């Protein structure tokens, strides 16, 4: 999916400063970035480079101190709390490093949590089928392995048929074989649903599945490169 299409995200000069009492932490120092329809990008960088902050801002979880972010032409940086909530509810799917499942709900119920408030969702079962977990539907998170939990989180993220899928270190807590399963699920969603996907990682190997790789260092973009030789997740090794 390397053909250039319309920009889904257009971020201009984003700066994020955290006020930590006595010190000010510059998480982002003027980032310009565009994300195109249906592409997979990987945000690569060491911890503290501003990856998560950028993802949170794109996902409407956080707002920049300076700069503008447009989502399909409408400015997120001027949206209030309720518009951001609606934006997350209808357009964004999140996958977190530590899954963030609700421990008191089963796999199916965790997915239902989203389908119950989305506009045109899949059935939870359908979403779980995409991540190949229909047989574990009625298990609670504590009864599932880390990889399984992360695939549930992906099912939960995609069940609303989001326009963008934002994954923050989705394999960070997993071993390689489990990580591959999770990445396959992400890749499949992108392939079958054409969902614009951004994956954060500090693992350079994973950038091989991307259409484009964006390197971040110290709150700045260090380089953007198009990946000419995209690999399947099962071809990765680290």
């Amino acid at each position, binding site marked *: 999916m390397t053909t250039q299409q319309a920009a889904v995200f257009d971020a201009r000069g984003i700066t994020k400063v955290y006020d930590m009492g006595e010190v000010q932490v510059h998480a982002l120092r003027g980032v310009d970035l565009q994300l195109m329809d249906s592409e997979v990008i990987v945000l690569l960088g060491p911890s503290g480079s501003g990856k998560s902050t950028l993802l*949170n801002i794109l996902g409407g979880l956080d707002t920049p101190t300076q700069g503008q972010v447009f989502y399909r032409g409408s400015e997120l940086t001027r949206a209030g709390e309720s518009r951001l909530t609606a934006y997350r*509810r209808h357009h*964004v799917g999140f996958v977190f490093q530590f899954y*963030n499942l*609700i421990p008191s709900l089963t796999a199916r119920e965790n997915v239902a949590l*989203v389908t119950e*408030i989305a506009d045109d969702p899949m059935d939870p079962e359908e979403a779980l089928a995409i991540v190949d977990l229909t047989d574990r539907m009625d298990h609670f998170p504590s009864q599932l392995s880390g990889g399984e939990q992360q695939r549930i989180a992906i099912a939960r993220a995609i069940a*609303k048929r989001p326009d963008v899928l934002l994954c923050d270190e989705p394999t960070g807590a997993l071993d390689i074989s489990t990580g591959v399963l999770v990445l396959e699920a992400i890749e499949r969603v992108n392939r079958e649903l054409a969902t614009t996907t951004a994956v954060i990682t500090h693992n350079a190997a994973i950038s091989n599945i991307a259409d484009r790789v964006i390197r971040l260092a110290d709150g700045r973009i260090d380089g953007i490169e198009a990946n000419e030789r995209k690999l399947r997740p099962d071809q990765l090794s680290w």
Partner: protein
Amino acid sequence: MRAIQLKVFRNLWRLKGQVAAIAVVITVGVAMFITYFSTFDSLSRTQATFYERYRFADVFAGVKRAPNHLASRFESIPGVAQVDTRVVAEVALDVEGMSEPVSGRLISMDVARTARLNDVALLRGRLPEPGRTDEVLIGEGFALAHGLDPGGSFYAVINGRKRELDVVGIGLSPEYVYAIRPGDLMPDDSRFGVMWMDHKALATAFDMEGGFNDIALQLVPGASADAAIASLDRLLEPYGGLGAFPRSLQISNWYLDSELRQLRGFGLFVPVVFLSVAAFLLNVVLRRIVAVQREQIAALKALGYSNAQVGWHYAQWSLLISVVGGIFGIWLGSWMGRGMIGLYNDYFRFPFLDYRLTTGVVLTATLFGLAAAIVGALGAVRQAVRLPPAEAMRPAPPALYRKTWIERLGIERVLSQPARIVLRNLKSHPLRTAASIVGIGFSAGLMIIGLFFLDTIDVVMDLQFNQIQRQDITLSFVEPRASAAFREVSRLPGVLDAAPARSLAVRLRAGHRTRQSAILGIETAARLQRVVDTDFRPVDLPPAGLVLSSKLAEILRVRPGSTLTLEVLEGTRPVRQVTVTRTIDEYMGAQAYMDMNTLHGLMREGRILSGAYLRVDPRLADSLYARLKLIPAVAGVALKSAAMIEFQRQMDEMMGVFIFFNVVFAAVITVGVVYNVARIALSERQHELASLRVLGFTRGEISSILLGELAVLTVTAIPLGLAMGYGFAGFMVVVFDTELYRFPLVITPRTYAASALVVLLSAALSGLLVRRRLDHLDLIEVLKVKE
């Protein structure tokens, strides 16, 4: 059910211990509200209905003797709707099974008339027939106390002659809902009976034909009772009027009203305490939940749940707990209310006293419960709403710890590391620590409220029965008479000591304030009835002037040195100016005293007495009573021992229930607070404690850190709670400061100790419950879970 809803139920189920502990506190709060207010409601409705249906009068007055034609003058008093004139007579009764004489009050009823004021609700039998001097309708309490039924009979000394009276009916009057003999502490149905006889028959028996000695007025709605009283007093003046008074000062109604006021006061105070504690617990627990579920909150928000939805999610926890507690509370409250009405049925006699739990009371109680839930949830909901989703992704920053001031005092070296952890933990949540201490303190305070009554009543009883009344018997004569009657009585076999009694009916006037009262004549160096102040010091009356109980002085707003107008309501009805020479603090009544000789001088009378105080040989008591029954001059005999026993019995009955519930409720609060605080501390520190276990600390050592925290809370809370209890008791003393009785603020060490003990035991119990969890702490699991 929606997934987010399922989450609420499953989370609550997981926390069931804590949920139950909070729900029980709410249950008690709601139950107390329901109990007090449904009882208040049932009693006051019954009172209103009874008063209305049986035409309870608005103004009452006694007179020595007034002619019947005066009644038409009363009718022309502005605002008067109906007038009833009656003959009321105090008689001595001789009832089978009672060796001592019993006091009776005979009241005339115009049997032929239909709409009588203060009418009697006929429960069984029939009304007395016109003209029959041997037929009476008797009050239900008296009938039950002596097993008297229609067809039964007893004797009365009527106008000096002993006559047999046949019981033809049993009834109840709005005038005697609380049938207490004047001067008694408690009603005693076996020694005081009210009975009704046909008006003509009674008037004839007491030489009152063509006249009356008691008046009841009913006013048109909105009419001024004060104006009617003034007019009535003027009309009665020439006939020996004893002073008119409004319904609010009618003795039975006064007791009933003050009981209702107390119910309402308690009904607000106690539930507010419990629901405040519940709100505090909800606050603490929910804040902890929100802290633990930071990442879940972040996920929910990231998934598109709005702040309102997230806030509502956590508010639901609180509301659900409150609803569960409330439902049990309503159930428990209606059960206790029913029981309370059952108790009241023994004290207040109504022809019908049904328990009614109205929707209004249930709704208000529910609102109270919900208010506690909302107040309790507020902090946590705000926290959940305010949590920025991006920030929630990261673990919470560690709590801010500082060295405590205790450590900075320089005793740092003596504190072990675990002791430092305990102190710093408490210090790092100052509000929660303070609120926990206050919460536990409340339960100690509640215990004191319960037990303090025993202490204070002991003091009042001791003063009243051992210091003031040293006589065994107080006799009252039918009318004040010369000392010959006294000499006759004092020479009876079995009388060890006798002292004359003189009580003078008066109206005291200071400016525009007036009070009807009786002046008690006290002899110098009195041996039997004495005047003793609340410091247990016998008071010698000054040879001149009037001594007032502080309460009476307060009512009249006079001080020693003030001058009062004294209108005597008997004999030649002289009006005199007297000086108040002293006031004394007393617990019972609002008396006035005067030196016996000064009183005689004031009345320009010889040795005129209204009764006698007797000390008797217990072995000869029965034969003495038999002799007294035959003396026509004797109208009433009050036995100190009977009064003491009855007082003690009724107190035990009431206080037993009251104290039992207080102990249970205090324990509920302590367990609720300590258990929840402990569970939260455990949840916050299981990492730390598990780490310590890994480092080689024993179970006992880590327990001592957690339980040490609870111990510090409890031990700090106890002195505070005892001080709070002192304050509550002081509040009760003010609430119970009435014209009829007052209570001293006396709390014995026994009460303090018992209160502290209940709190300690409840805290220890809660500690044990948490300790069990600590013993089962799974080290690996706890350390694996990401905080």
